[in-house]
């Protein structure tokens, strides 16, 4: 029944490492999103994609990049991890008319940068 899968539930990385967070959806959704979730700040949009090889910056893209080579997979890349990127990362997907149906979320990846 799982529709959006994030490859890791917990990750611990060192400062300066390049980090890849993977997300796969099996619903043939056009749109995919990466958010970070922090207490008191809610969910903040990092990057999103409306189609393969397309990407758009969200509200907090600095220090991140993304890759979408296939429709079902959307990767978040931390080029050089820093301690302020310690957070819960949530992937989501939706139909192109997501305005009506909302998002389906993954279970999240809790990243700790030490």
């Amino acid at each position, binding site marked *: 029944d799982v529709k959006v899968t994030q490859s890791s539930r917990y990750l611990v990385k060192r400062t300066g490492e390049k980090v890849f967070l993977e997300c796969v959806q099996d619903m043939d959704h056009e749109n995919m999103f990466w958010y970070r979730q922090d207490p008191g700040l*809610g969910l903040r949009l990092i990057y999103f994609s409306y189609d393969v090889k397309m990407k758009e910056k969200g509200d907090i893209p600095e220090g991140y990049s993304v890759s979408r080579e296939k429709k079902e997979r959307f990767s978040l890349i931390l080029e050089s991890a820093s301690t302020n990127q310690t957070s819960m990362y*949530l992937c989501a997907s939706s*139909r192109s008319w997501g305005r*009506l149906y*909302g998002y389906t979320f993954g*279970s999240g990846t809790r990243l700790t940068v030490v």
Partner: protein
Amino acid sequence: AQRVTQPEKLLSVFKGAPVELKCNYSYSGSPELFWYVQYSRQRLQLLLRHISRESIKGFTADLNKGETSFHLKKPFAQEEDSAMYYCASQEETSGSRLTFGEGTQLTVNP
């Protein structure tokens, strides 16, 4: 840019009491509005959406365009309602991207 505000980070009520989680949005157009819920150790999931005019698990939400609010209400809270609740809005011009509020942690005490 659109903004969603949930003024209460924490809300605690007793079982059987009414509960209202507040949400205000800052957009003069006609956004689509949603409530999402995250129970302990579970993924974030859609609770209800304004366009459906639905009631889910006894919760309802009314859009007040004059006050730009979309408060979530339930007349009799249950212990299993304890969770983190997020309000979210989607502008007409923003495609499918959602803007979320800060979240409200609801605790229903026995």
